[in-house]
């Protein structure tokens, strides 16, 4: 019988306790490119989840490129469109309308587009946001603009309808139209409309762009004044086709092929009037801190520097054979043929 004294029993020493030094996040060892690659496998829900883990995870999981890829996969945007812009060409979120130029907003725009579309999809599944007819116009509707719960629309005979209490954002509730006001804004068609919380801008074939104070306008209409007076009127040489407003500035494009840049605080004279192409209508305009963009019926897309007063464009693009109706975004241009 063998008997081992206890001193002979070999007990392996316990593994040294690892000092609890804070081990860094393993993902921080990887380059950002690989991190994004890992996150790109996640489902959007998990992606949003992992954004709440820490600051660095948040920065990675909110990357616009990831959300752009998700939107492209879901078919919410066209991935073949040359993407110069970091923001989607259209976002129906009222927050974006209020704050279009903040970098965080621009950064999260694809994500919000995805969330918005998912919400619409879910609502449609459970039979919530139904289509609602906002009738009332006596002539063709040429333009429409949404701000919060309010929809404004302009028609060919110069009427503008403001329909209040339609719903929140895009969720248009049935039978919830609370108020419908109309007034004669222009003598002919209202070709373009832009509305924010305070003001309403209308551009018309009668060569003017009018800025209306919304509160004043409501009071006037309710007091039965047939033709309320606009706060500011900007006079142009030809019919207005398109306008774009950011902050205190406004760009308008006309039928005669000119692009006008206005400072709304000094409405007497345009800051700049650029001749794009003689007698070729300017189909869309946009601008950012540096450049003014415009497209015309010839399919041309040009941009001018805001600091350089000459008429010659900084950059021209001729890619479209047909007339363009472009959606321009501040960080670049996203063009669709029409």
């Amino acid at each position, binding site marked *: 019988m063998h008997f081992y004294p206890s001193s002979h029993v070999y007990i392996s020493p316990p593994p040294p306790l690892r000092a609890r030094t804070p081990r860094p996040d393993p*993902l921080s*060892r*990887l380059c950002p490119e690989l991190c994004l*690659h*890992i996150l790109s496998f996640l489902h959007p829900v998990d992606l949003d989840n*992992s954004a709440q883990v820490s600051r660095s995870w948040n920065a990675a999981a909110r990357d616009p490129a990831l959300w752009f890829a998700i939107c492209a996969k879901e078919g919410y945007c066209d991935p073949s469109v040359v993407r110069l812009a970091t923001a989607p060409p259209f976002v129906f979120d009222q927050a974006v309308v209020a704050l279009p130029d903040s970098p965080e907003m621009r950064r999260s725009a694809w994500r919000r587009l995805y969330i918005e579309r998912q919400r619409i999809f879910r609502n449609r599944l459970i039979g919530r946001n139904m289509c609602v007819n906002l009738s009332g116009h006596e002539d063709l509707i040429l333009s429409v603009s949404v701000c919060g719960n309010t929809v404004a629309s302009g028609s060919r005979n110069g009427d503008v309808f403001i329909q209040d209490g339609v719903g929140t954002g895009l969720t248009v509730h049935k039978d919830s139209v609370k108020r419908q006001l109309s007034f004669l804004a222009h003598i002919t068609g209202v070709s373009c409309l832009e509305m924010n919380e305070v003001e309403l801008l209308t551009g018309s074939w009668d060569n003017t762009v009018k800025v209306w104070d919304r509160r004043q306008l409501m009071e006037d209409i309710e007091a039965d004044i047939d033709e309320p007076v606009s706060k500011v009127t900007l006079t142009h040489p030809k019919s207005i086709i398109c306008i774009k407003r950011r902050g205190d500035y406004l760009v308008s494009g006309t039928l005669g092929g000119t692009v006008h840049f206005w400072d709304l605080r000094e409405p007497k004279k345009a800051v700049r009037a650029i001749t794009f192409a003689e007698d070729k209508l300017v189909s869309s305009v946009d601008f950012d801190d540096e450049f003014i963009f415009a497209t015309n019926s010839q399919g041309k897309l040009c941009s001018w520097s805001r600091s350089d007063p000459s008429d010659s464009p900084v950059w021209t693009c001729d890619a479209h054979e047909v007339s363009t109706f472009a959606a321009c975004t501040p960080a670049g241009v996203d063009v669709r043929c029409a």
Partner: protein
Amino acid sequence: MFHRANLRNNSKNGRSQVGQNRNSKKKPVAKLTLITEDNESFTVCKKVAEMSMFFKNMLQDTEGIPAPFIVPNVSGYDLKKIIEYCSYHCLDTDCPNDNDSLRSRRDRKIGHWDETFVRNIINKDGDPVIDNLVGLTKAAYFLDIPGLIWLMTKSIANTIDPKPIAEIREIFNVPVPSEREEEILQR
């Protein structure tokens, strides 16, 4: 077929000395000696090494087999696993190893062999598995092996995938932020 079975055997044993397969007697197989950062040396045949774009380009540039090559930025353990992966997949036509076909098939499932391969990535020095996954991803990225990068990143994504935030924090050793911080992150 014999060749393939042979290689599979090798990798199962975890020995991964693929360069010494028996085929070499019949016809000389070009071999490459690799020495890692921590002085472990490996002999691999050219075909296996060419799974890595890094080595492929290097071999094309140097025209011929260079003397023992010191691989920077890659540890012995990582290289062992990489050779194991490459020696299996250099004969596997099902698994693409170029960026274009990977992009088009990025949502495919992880194969059976690959799954075992990932499961066998063990705790080295008591480090959690995730550290080794990340280390291997880094090495694969450095050596530019698209198939392995895909596999590793997908595996890491799978560890994140259906888990609650607290669990992710535990796996990745992220300290729990303060309540105020958490509010900011939730936005």
